[in-house]
């Protein structure tokens, strides 16, 4: 019988990638990392599509209880797998069947179906799109701000400083990489004081600090202070985003 865990994380320095490395660090689990170079389209190579047919990071493999390899994709389902299998002491989750467990899932889905895709579209129209479409920028920046308002209200009501119950859970971890990069989507975090305080509270956690620098340094916070570098990165990303769009359209 192979030993468990035998976790291998395939990831890139993005909000969706670091939510998994942070989850792993918070749980104190050992794991191997392979950096996927999305600028070289590594995520579209056949060996990677075997792990994730959707060609997106993050993806994860582990030795399952039957001794065989399990392949997982979609960051939300990876987080659920990790707490199911390895968070027996409920460090960053709640026991199945409790009210808090289901409420944690509401906020987890809220991030995966709401904040992530919408803030991603705000990034696209404000940073990467081939033409500047004011309407597109506004539509998604405003929706991101609305979603942040919902988070802010929830955190104002919270006595623990986290989204659900008395501790930091995978729902908080899933949000952090996105919220801490708010400025990149044109959203000013200062408008949301409770959320801003939560951002700092999260950053102070050793697991977040360790996990955010996977597979390489997390630089979005420094970038905010360096407009020249910001522009350079946006231009680079813009080039490969548009290349990817052109390639997808040909299929």
């Amino acid at each position: 019988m192979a030993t468990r865990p035998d976790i291998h994380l395939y990831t890139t320095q993005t909000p969706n990638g670091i939510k998994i490395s942070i989850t792993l660090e918070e749980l104190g689990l050992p794991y191997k990392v392979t950096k996927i170079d999305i600028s070289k389209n590594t995520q579209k190579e056949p060996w990677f599509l075997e792990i994730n047919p959707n060609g997106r990071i993050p993806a994860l493999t582990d030795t399952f209880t039957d001794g065989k390899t399990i392949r997982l994709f979609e960051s939300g389902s990876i987080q659920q797998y990790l707490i199911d299998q390895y968070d027996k002491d409920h460090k960053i989750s709640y026991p199945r069947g409790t009210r808090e467990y289901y409420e944690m899932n509401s906020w987890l889905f809220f991030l995966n179906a709401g904040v992530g895709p919408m803030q991603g579209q705000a990034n696209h129209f404000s940073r990467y799109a081939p033409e500047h479409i004011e309407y597109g920028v506004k539509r998604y920046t405003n929706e991101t701000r609305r979603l942040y308002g919902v988070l802010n209200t929830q955190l104002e009501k919270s006595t623990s400083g986290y989204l659900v119950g008395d501790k930091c859970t995978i729902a908080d971890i899933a949000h952090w990489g996105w919220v801490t990069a708010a400025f990149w989507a044109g959203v000013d975090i200062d408008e949301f004081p409770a959320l801003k305080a939560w951002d700092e509270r999260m950053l102070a956690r050793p697991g977040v600090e360790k996990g955010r620098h996977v597979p390489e340094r997390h630089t979005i916070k420094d970038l905010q202070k360096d407009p020249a570098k910001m522009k350079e990165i946006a231009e680079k990303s813009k080039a490969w985003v548009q290349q990817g769009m052109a390639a997808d359209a040909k299929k």
Partner: protein
Amino acid sequence: MPKPIRIWLAPPGPNPWKVIIVLEELQIPYEITSIRFENIKAKPFIDLNPNGRVPAIEDPNTGLTLWETGAIILYLIEQYDTEKKLTYDTVVERNRLNQWLMFQVSGQGPYYGQATWFQVLHSEKIPSAINRYVEEAKRVCGVLEGSLAGKKWLVGDKITFADLAFVPWNDRLDAVLMCEGEKKFEGFPLVKAWHESMISRPSWKKAMEIRAKLMDIQGLAWNGMPKGVSNMEEYVEKIKKDAEAAGK
């Protein structure tokens, strides 16, 4: 027999029907509270869902209020699918199901939704924005097509909640792509067969009958807007005028 679950919804959008078909498939008793689009971001609904999006459920059997379709479906399955009609109790399959559900809520829903917005609801036609989301919708269909090769269902050998979750959005793929209904799955024969086997089930038929009735009560046309209104700006304008008229 559990007490009926209350489900709050607005009839036009696809998401509430994801939950309804799971309720129907599992034969869980439920009652619908149908609200109007303009009341989604207002009290009393936002007391149930602070995000102001439908659906949300209240389960008197457990006292739980829940929102986000993905979280609702996982709850219904855990709580009421004791015979594992739409799920598996083996860990590999259970995690695969979660993976496809997450792909549906974060990969299919938001992008089909943006395509529909730019194709149907927005007043100004912006080709590059339409193109972006149409291409992404086709890419999602391609992922499904590849994953259905050699099998009938996404996970294992029976229909599950993961399959059902894709139905409401795939059913309106014609509005996403702006094409004729019979051409919507062109290039994706496996997705077509998979989808058609699900919409022929009693659960979907019942859901669409209920939807038609509720749409009619609210005076809404196929596009989710009142009859005679052709885009969202006109709709918002109409809501404002109606509110003013009611205030007088």
